[in-house]
């Protein structure tokens, strides 16, 4: 079944079509919201919200952009908005630790896991910009629009985030982790 057919059927509430779209794009949606959320539990809520918004908005999808791009944008917007709400709530409820505890080291931890863990430990503002720019490939103009900041602010946050990320990765390097030593040591 073509994507256009799936979309048309999903618009009409066809559960099979929605499921097929979910199967196709869930990893992409989950990846971006997970990284923005920096937390597994939040990520699941954010991903669900993103899908609900996307399914609701399906009738407005005109096919000007690729469906994956359209869906991705909804996921990013939805996660950023949800994160803002979470941050506001956390501020009201009291300070949260800046970093998330790192699980115990093991020799077989992959480089990707280290990157993900370091991302989770970045302060939220830095994380958002770093993910949008370096992981998702957004421009500073697009990031400025998404986050409601000037492109210059996005740039400045990005450079700080890269430096902080580098420090975090070096700290996460296992003493005998040859892979990490090769990849990250100076």
């Amino acid at each position: 079944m073509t994507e256009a057919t799936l979309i048309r059927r999903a618009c009409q509430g066809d559960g099979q079509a929605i499921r097929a779209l979910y199967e196709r794009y869930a990893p992409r949606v989950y990846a971006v919201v997970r990284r923005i959320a920096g937390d597994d539990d939040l990520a699941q809520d954010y991903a669900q919200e993103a899908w609900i918004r996307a399914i609701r908005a399906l009738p407005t999808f005109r096919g000007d952009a690729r469906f994956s791009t359209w869906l991705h944008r909804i996921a990013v917007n939805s996660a950023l908005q949800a994160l803002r709400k979470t941050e506001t709530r956390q501020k009201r409820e009291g300070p949260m630790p800046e970093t998330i505890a790192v699980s115990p080291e093991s020799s077989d931890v992959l480089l990707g896991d280290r990157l993900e863990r370091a991302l989770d430990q970045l302060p939220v503002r830095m994380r958002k910009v770093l993910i949008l720019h370096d992981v998702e490939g957004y421009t500073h103009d697009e990031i400025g629009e998404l986050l409601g900041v000037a492109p210059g602010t996005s740039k400045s946050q990005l450079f700080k985030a890269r430096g902080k990320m580098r420090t975090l990765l070096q700290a996460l390097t296992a003493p005998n982790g040859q892979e990490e030593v090769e990849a990250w040591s100076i």
Partner: protein
Amino acid sequence: MEHLTKETLARLVDERPNPEQREHLSSCTVCALELRGLRRQTEALGSLPDLRPPPGDWVGLEARLMSEGLVDGGSRSTGFSVLFRTGWMQAAAAVILFLGGTSFGAAMSGDLQAASDDTVDARVAGVPQSVEDAAEAVYSAEQAYQLALVQYGQIERRGRTRNYGELLGRAATLDALLAATQEAVRISPSDPFFNGLLVNTLAEREDMLRQISSTRDGGWF
């Protein structure tokens, strides 16, 4: 010699160094290596893979889609619609039902077993080789079961007494659905949709076997 700041080096991942910075980088190994590390880091971030959602993600989403009326509750639903409305969602219960249902089924009369086997054979003829085939088989089996449910409901609405044979027919379609779902789980053991459907089909079957048993005890035979 004063090193370049981390922020400056991070900027140089995207931008060209000015003459002063270039000169520094050509003579300072520490800064040159740091810049190389930052470039690798940026490349690695750009190559991060997609992430699979945790198991159960779809189940939660489906429930929300249904509660918000975004999924048509009709016959072309995702398969959970009929069975999940029964409320049998507990994983622990699933295990018990699986064990209980299987042994109960084994103890059933030859009539039911024969009817079920025939239907199962018919429905699952040609063992699916891919997840898509398995999903299609599950979908067809669910359609047949839903049809049986509708027919059974019509019989009841017409005020006719429940008939043991009709119950058996309905049970046979449910067994076909169970067989198709089990096959789907065998092909894709971690699929939350198939697993969820299996849990609910087993629960539904258990309930039906109880009905059949009480009908028989009620004097039909």
